[in-house]
């Protein structure tokens, strides 16, 4: 690599507008082939030997691009990286051939106890170094760049020395990974911690943003909780509009994990997202699988 030359970040070709693939919709999707550009699947739900989930995923994959989204990578944990999990993830990826693989910028387990929650990290130099190194290891193991998603949070550690957007930006640069920006999580965290969500967006390096998440949340007293059991609310649509103005069209999906409505209702929400995008998606011919930018 020539020093002083900033190479463009290589992202994956955009997928358009997608939904999460959920059990109650398996049969509907296979029967009706609804006009959705792609589906996001929760990786852990398909790390089983066989049966209905794998059967439907394989059939549906024949008709749609799929991205794999995980919740158990525990990238920020101080436990050793779980290579048993990573091997299963890689095996699944070999079979599914996803457009990309994502997980969360958080930690989930410690002392080998899994909280099954997306727990926030303290944002400081030590964490930065620790997490960036682990992301690089995961990317080397999987042979591809991964996407890291910002989580909703309900507390701020005294050990934090920087803001979440500073941390996210720095992680993406140091680990050379891509960003999955969850618009709802930004809004939820902004309300819980009292920052301006627009300010968060403005500090994110657009060239690393591969995907957006949209979702709904629930109010609990003074706090907003990231529940994924409601339609996307107006303030999240407003923030999405701002994000589009700043980043241009970005691959988008709507997360709904609870209180799941009929498929057509989600399709209606997805069309609302579509209607907010006025420019075409930029096509890219670059292949992030070979993420060593200095090889000819």
């Amino acid at each position: 690599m020539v020093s002083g030359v900033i190479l463009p970040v290589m992202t994956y070709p955009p997928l358009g507008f997608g939904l999460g693939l959920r059990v109650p919709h398996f049969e509907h999707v296979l029967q009706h082939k609804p006009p959705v550009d792609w589906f996001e699947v929760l990786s852990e739900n398909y790390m089983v030997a066989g049966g209905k989930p794998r059967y439907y995923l394989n059939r549906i994959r024949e008709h749609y691009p799929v991205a794999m989204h995980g919740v158990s990578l525990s990238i920020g944990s101080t436990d050793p990286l779980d290579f048993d999990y990573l091997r299963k993830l890689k095996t699944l990826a070999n079979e599914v051939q996803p457009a990309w693989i994502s997980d969360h910028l958080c930690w989930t387990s410690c002392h080998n106890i899994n909280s099954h929650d997306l727990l926030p990290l303290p944002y400081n130099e030590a964490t930065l170094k620790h997490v960036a190194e682990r992301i690089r290891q995961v990317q080397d193991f999987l042979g591809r760049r991964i996407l890291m998603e910002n989580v909703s949070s309900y507390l701020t550690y005294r050990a934090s020395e920087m803001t979440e957007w500073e941390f996210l930006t720095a992680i993406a640069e140091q680990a050379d990974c891509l960003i999955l920006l969850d618009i709802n999580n930004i809004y939820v965290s902004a309300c819980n911690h009292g920052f301006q969500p627009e300010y968060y967006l403005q500090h994110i390096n657009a060239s690393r943003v591969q995907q957006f998440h949209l979702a709904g949340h629930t109010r609990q007293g003074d706090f907003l909780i990231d529940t994924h059991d409601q339609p996307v609310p107006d303030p999240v649509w407003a923030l999405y509009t701002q994000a589009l103005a700043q980043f241009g069209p970005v691959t988008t999906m709507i997360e709904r994990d609870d209180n799941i409505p009929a498929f057509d209702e989600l399709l209606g929400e997805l069309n609302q997202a579509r209607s907010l995008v006025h420019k075409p998606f930029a096509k890219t011919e670059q292949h992030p699988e070979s993420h060593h930018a200095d090889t000819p």
Partner: protein
Amino acid sequence: MQTLRELQSRFINYLTEGSAEMGSMIYADSQAEQQLRLDIYKNAYRIRLRQVLETDHEILWAYLGDALFGQMVNGYIASHPSHHTSLRNFCDQLPDYLADTSPFDQHPILAEIATFERLLMDVFDAGEAELTDLSTLRALKPENWPTMRLRFHPSVQLLQADWNSIESWKALKTETDPPAASDAASQHWLLWRDTDRLSQFRPVEADEHALLSLAVSGKEFSALCETLLNWHPVNEASMVALRYITEWLDQGLITKIVSDTENHAPQLV
């Protein structure tokens, strides 16, 4: 400044044991706000694990009722934190917990119902395998019959129920009252996933169970016929065995029929 390790250690202890050391690690304007913020995580942890128990063991919940089930939930979550990447395995130790923990250990039917529910989950997501049919059996040369062995679909499971646990499961599944717990009639059950990917189960009689156990463990046809002599006259044993095997083929339990010659590849010199 505390290390990331210390912070995560305290956080996990807070979630699993409610230890108080966590408070000093976070910003809050008041003690009350601090507690509210921490409670969001603690409640989410408990609710998530509780939901897994409720979903995976719906019938056990109905059998126990809310109060006892709630007691079980609290005890299990406290004693069995998750060591798995997937919540699919969180309740794997529940049958053992019920068998070993008071007051549940006084009612062995509870562990049996939980075992049955977990076996149904295993049947649901067991591996795929292509099935074979009667034609492979017909194509078998007479000299290969004695050494013939069967290979079963990965979803096939056998369960011995000493209590009327499955009858109780069936009653509650159709929202009727279960019979009083009884260990008067021990019964063997066969579970498998059918070709429509639906979980199936049926009782099996003693002779079929003996036959199935041997066949699943890879024993030859001659050994299968021999065990049937405990129930059937010598001139009928092979016919009875054949009748059962034909049924298993029809029900989609068998993936392969191998004879001795195919089983042992010739030695390369």
